[in-house]
């Protein structure tokens, strides 16, 4: 994208969301320059994310997995934003960006392992930082990581993902301020899914938009239709370009992606207590998956046969991931002592030995 195109895309009123597809999948903006096969892959990854999510919720319901934060409704923003990255870039997720993480290289089985209570799920080796469960705490990490890369002369962009609620935390403001002062190559991807558990966006901040908060830190904030994967791809790609070395003056960008979580905050939450089902239904009409599917069908890139093939592929991929995660042998109890320090102090070694001896003597039943 050339400079003027990028500027017209990013430097607009903060309440003028970028769109490519309308709610029915008809083209209303500039379709990004992605190959036909890449567009179909994007569709497949949306379907994969949707299926993975449903399966994860079901595993939790069956007692096969712990509490899980679903992402249904937000796949378009997750996959679209991840498609805009180079492999060498780094993602700093909160706890809901399963699809971002997967597209950027984390195996689905590792994502399941983490939510099944296994630390090894975070040892995936991809350019994705470990999940941050506290709110907004990962945003300064993205800034520092990108800053260090820039100081080293490395061409690495960092993308922090967080929700609308996170914009109320001090860490959000401190991170954006650092990014603005130090010109870090960072994209702040705010998934405004309208609800921070039970608190609606309007009660989170009196600001008209979240994108507008960027102006306080001296850089651009832009809204995008987060239920439109092509729009998210375009905006994040432009922001990544600007963060990279574009025009010799890398700058951060805040992207406010307007989305909706169709389901609960987590499997421990009951959204019917605090939000109106009619609102959920209104947002379901903007579901990213049928929108992209309609576009791809209308433009001859997808047909019934290809859709059926995608369904089969996605089903098998998720089934394999669940099987791999569940077949993972539980770590031995003493694994909790691994990696606490680079070198364990003697007191820790003694505690480890005590647990090992107890386990050896009393077995699993001694800990029930």
């Amino acid at each position: 994208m050339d400079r003027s195109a990028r500027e017209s895309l990013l430097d607009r009123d903060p309440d003028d969301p970028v769109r490519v597809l309308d709610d029915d999948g008809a083209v209303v903006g500039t379709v990004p320059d992605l190959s036909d096969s890449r567009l179909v892959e994007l569709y497949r990854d949306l379907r994969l994310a949707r299926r993975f999510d449903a399966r994860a919720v079901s595993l939790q319901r069956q007692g096969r997995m712990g509490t899980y934060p679903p992402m249904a409704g937000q796949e378009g923003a997750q996959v679209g934003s991840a498609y805009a990255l180079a492999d060498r870039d780094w993602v700093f997720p909160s706890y809901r960006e399963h699809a971002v993480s997967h597209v950027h290289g984390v195996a689905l089985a590792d994502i399941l392992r983490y939510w099944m209570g296994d630390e090894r799920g975070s040892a995936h080796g991809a350019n994705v930082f470990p999940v941050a469960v506290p709110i907004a705490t990962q945003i300064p990490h993205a800034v520092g990581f990108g800053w260090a890369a820039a100081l080293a002369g490395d061409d690495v962009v960092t993308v922090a993902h967080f929700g609308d609620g996170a914009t109320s935390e001090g860490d959000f403001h401190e991170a954006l301020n650092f990014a603005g002062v130090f010109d870090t190559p960072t994209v702040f991807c705010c998934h405004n899914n309208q609800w921070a558990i039970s608190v609606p966006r309007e009660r989170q901040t009196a600001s008209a938009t979240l994108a507008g908060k960027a102006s306080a830190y001296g850089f651009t904030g832009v809204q995008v239709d987060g239920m439109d994967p092509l729009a998210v791809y375009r905006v994040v790609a432009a922001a990544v370009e600007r963060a990279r070395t574009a025009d010799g003056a890398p700058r951060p960008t805040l992207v406010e992606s307007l989305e909706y979580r169709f389901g609960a905050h987590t499997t421990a939450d009951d959204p019917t207590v605090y939000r109106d089902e009619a609102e959920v239904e209104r947002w379901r009409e903007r579901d990213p998956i049928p929108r992209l599917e309609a576009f791809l069908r209308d433009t001859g890139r997808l047909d019934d046969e290809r859709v059926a093939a995608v369904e089969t592929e996605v089903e098998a991929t998720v089934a394999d991931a669940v099987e791999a995660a569940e077949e993972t042998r539980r770590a031995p109890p003493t694994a909790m002592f691994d990696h606490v320090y680079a070198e364990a102090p003697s007191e820790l070694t003694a505690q480890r030995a005590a647990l090992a001896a107890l386990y050896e003597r009393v077995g699993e039943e001694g800990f029930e």
Partner: protein
Amino acid sequence: MSGAAPATSLTLVQAVRDGLAGELARDDDVVILGEDVAANGGVFRATDGLLDEFGPDRVVDTPLAESGIVGASVGMAAYGLRPVPEIQFSGFLYPGFDQLVSHAARLRTRSRGAVTAPVTLRAPYGGGIRAPEHHSESKEAFYAHEPGLTVVVPSTPRDAKGLLASAVRSPDPVVFLEPKRIYRAFREDVPDEAYTVPIGEATVRREGADVSVITYGAMTQPALDAAEALADDGVDTEVVDLRTLAPLDRETLVASFEKTGRAVVVHEAPRTAGVGAEVVAALQEAALLYQEAPVERVTGYDVPVPLYALEQFYLPNALRVREAVERVVSYR
């Protein structure tokens, strides 16, 4: 609480809710604020229905900002309100930690009593519910270490209501840590009317002559279970529930230890610099000459709380308590 006083069988979390409702009704200055406490009634339902009963000026959903919640509570308290902020899980308190230790804890002393912060900060804490990362920590020692703070951990529904009332009425900031593992573990008859259980007083949950097990919160039940099992082997175990961690009720601890001469201290928090170390020091300082055996600690390990697949190996249980007691009573 014997006799005909009307009571209702409640879980610990229901007793917290009952206590909050009672304090809101008793004193118009009491205000609850936090994340998801109003419309949602709290993620554990500890504030269920309070918005409808007391209105949006007294039961307030805040933006997602713990420093804001604690800091605004300090300001409200200084103006004369009695804020009862909720931090959704104690593991998310840290953005508010600065406000708690740098300001709430020391406004009184710094202003020579002119400015005070009677805030009751409630937070579910501890492990045992297969929760995600950062939802299972026991960091009570952080707060007990801070001069000016009072730290309370109830272990029964009746105590939860009475201690909470004392906390709200306290002139000083109180960190009220609720062991979520036992939020719904059992029920107890809780008096319907308001009452207080005094802060700073431990209680003897089970009397015994041979050894003292000193504990609090969710570890009280495994301690009692161990005591029952030990009774079958002829070991008569006393179980002391601290209830308040700061200030520590040294008198009750020492009295028990002077009787038994042997002790085991139990908590699920990590061992190093934990509350147990303070208990052991208190016994040594006051009752060394009564001591018959080294005091043992049964605690969580000095590791970050493992994710839930290994959680049961981290948390102390009745078996570990029992084995420690056996070592202590057989020491010659």
